[in-house]
């Protein structure tokens, strides 16, 4: 048996935990760069569509009918960690599937306990972390995912749906679009539709040979999972990292090489920090820049890479290479929107053999420099100490005008509380609103 625990409107829920004044109010979270809406609280869902631009909702925001937040990934990651930590109290097998979803392995539970157990998970996660979750329970991961969807959609279930308790599961599956099935994206859905398969039930009852022939073994497994045969086991260990990417959109369109180089140098610095934090060296480094996809004309994209010999996580070396790659990729006359740096060919520190051809570098000294930079930047603020290539006053920086605090990871940004005072009743009727 499996359970899927899915956090409801996760990013918006994270923002609400520390803001009781937003209880019951519509909250939306913007993508990186305040581009468009990527998360909506239940109250915001009827007001605005997903992917709505900030521009299109600005009237609601101005009149206080919608509260928006810039993406606060540090907060979301920490809250996600807390949810997973809580789930580990419920099962030894926890597989984090995304930032807001996790599978639990439920071996050894008797059928009768399962719904109760789901409610316990639901209540405890909410109590401990403040995050509301939906729990789907079923014989297979694919069915557990569908059950979690159902638990979210029907409030009378109180956040938990045990698929095994349904009187007529097929009648339910007949009412769910095949596109809702785990692993079936837009393309697969179109193909299934063209074969006359529109509902989950139709997929469940599809001909095995036909499915295998058209969609391969993975498609067949999905069908078997819908029939209750578990084909996707728990995968508690995260796959080893094969690349490190830092990619952002600029705050506005950028035309100058100097601005692009500053941005690329900054992303490279982040990337090098990530590599050092994970004890990895990069053997290959790529820089890509591009214009907006949403423009009909004057589009441009370019990528340039370099082999690093010996592999390194030294910020200075990586910036030096990145600057050359950025210059090589740059063509004047375009309005650039986004840059990306990608470190690949990663090896753990200590497993790298010395190079035959490269000049020896005093690595011990360099490592010390990097360690000192990392610890200063951690203590003071990001980029307190940095390389000159990053620029002093970036003009390309991301927009994040609605940033909330990093409530759980920075001493200077903790939630604040007032000392409660009894408001003495007065003879005249004054409204006693708390002063903000």
């Amino acid at each position, binding site marked *: 048996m499996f359970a899927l625990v899915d956090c409801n409107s996760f990013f918006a829920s994270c923002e609400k935990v520390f803001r*009781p004044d937003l*209880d019951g109010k519509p909250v939306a979270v913007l993508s990186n760069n305040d581009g468009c809406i990527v998360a909506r609280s239940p109250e915001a869902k009827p007001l605005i569509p997903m992917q709505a631009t900030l521009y299109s909702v600005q009237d609601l925001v101005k009149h206080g009918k919608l509260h928006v937040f810039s993406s606060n990934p540090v907060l979301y990651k920490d809250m996600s960690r807390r949810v997973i930590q*809580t789930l580990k109290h419920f099962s030894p097998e926890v597989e984090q599937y995304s930032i807001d979803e996790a599978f639990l392995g439920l071996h050894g539970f008797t059928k009768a306990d399962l719904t109760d157990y789901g409610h316990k998970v639901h209540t405890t996660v909410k109590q401990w972390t403040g995050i509301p979750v939906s729990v789907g329970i079923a014989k297979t991961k694919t069915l557990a995912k569908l059950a979690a969807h159902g638990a979210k959609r029907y409030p009378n279930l109180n956040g938990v749906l045990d698929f095994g308790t349904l009187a007529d599961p097929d009648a339910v599956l007949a009412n769910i679009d095949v596109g809702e099935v785990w692993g079936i994206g837009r393309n697969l859905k179109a193909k299934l539709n063209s074969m006359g398969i529109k509902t989950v039930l139709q997929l469940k009852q599809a001909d095995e040979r036909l499915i295998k022939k058209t969609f391969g073994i993975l498609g067949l497994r999905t069908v078997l999972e819908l029939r209750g045969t578990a084909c996707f086991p728990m995968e508690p260990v995260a796959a080893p990292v094969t690349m490190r990417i830092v990619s952002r959109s600029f705050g506005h369109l950028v035309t100058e090489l100097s601005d692009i180089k500053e941005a690329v140098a900054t992303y490279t610095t982040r990337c090098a920090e990530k590599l050092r934090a994970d004890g990895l060296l990069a053997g290959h480094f790529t820089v890509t820049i591009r214009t907006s996809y949403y423009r009909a004309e004057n589009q441009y994209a370019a990528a340039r890479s370099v082999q690093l010999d010996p592999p390194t996580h030294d910020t200075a070396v990586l910036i030096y290479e990145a600057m050359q790659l950025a210059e090589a990729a740059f063509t004047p006359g375009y309005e650039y929107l986004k840059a990306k740096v990608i470190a690949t060919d990663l090896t753990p520190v200590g497993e790298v053999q010395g190079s035959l051809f490269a000049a020896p570098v005093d690595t011990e000294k360099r490592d010390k420099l990097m360690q000192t930079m990392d610890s200063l930047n951690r203590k003071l603020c990001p980029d307190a100490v940095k390389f000159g290539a990053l620029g002093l006053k970036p003009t390309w920086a991301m927009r994040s005008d609605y940033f909330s605090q990093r*409530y759980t990871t920075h001493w200077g940004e903790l939630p604040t*509380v007032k*000392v409660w005072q009894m408001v003495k009743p007065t003879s005249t009727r004054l409204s006693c*609103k708390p002063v903000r």
Partner: protein
Amino acid sequence: MGFPVPGDAIEQSLDLNHHLIHNPAATFFMRVEGDMVAGQDVHPGDLLVVDRSLVAQDGSLVVAAIAGTLQILRVEQHQGQLVPPGWQRGTDGDIDIWGVVAHLIRKV
């Protein structure tokens, strides 16, 4: 001749995290702000260790949401409800307990 290091007697040094945080997933730090309130054991600037997994009881120091703001107060059992002393349910509105203050850290 020096004394041998007694290998089996080595213990870990004392860790305040261990001492103050019993349930890391449910523990949050908060800061007290505002003016000193006479007769209160909580001061502005105090660092609170708030544990959401603890169940508030009669006499607990808690952080609660009152009128949309987080406030720290002591609650007592009154007609089956945990409320601050003298609280009139209905007239004074709702209080929603956010978490129980497990420890209070004060710089002196």
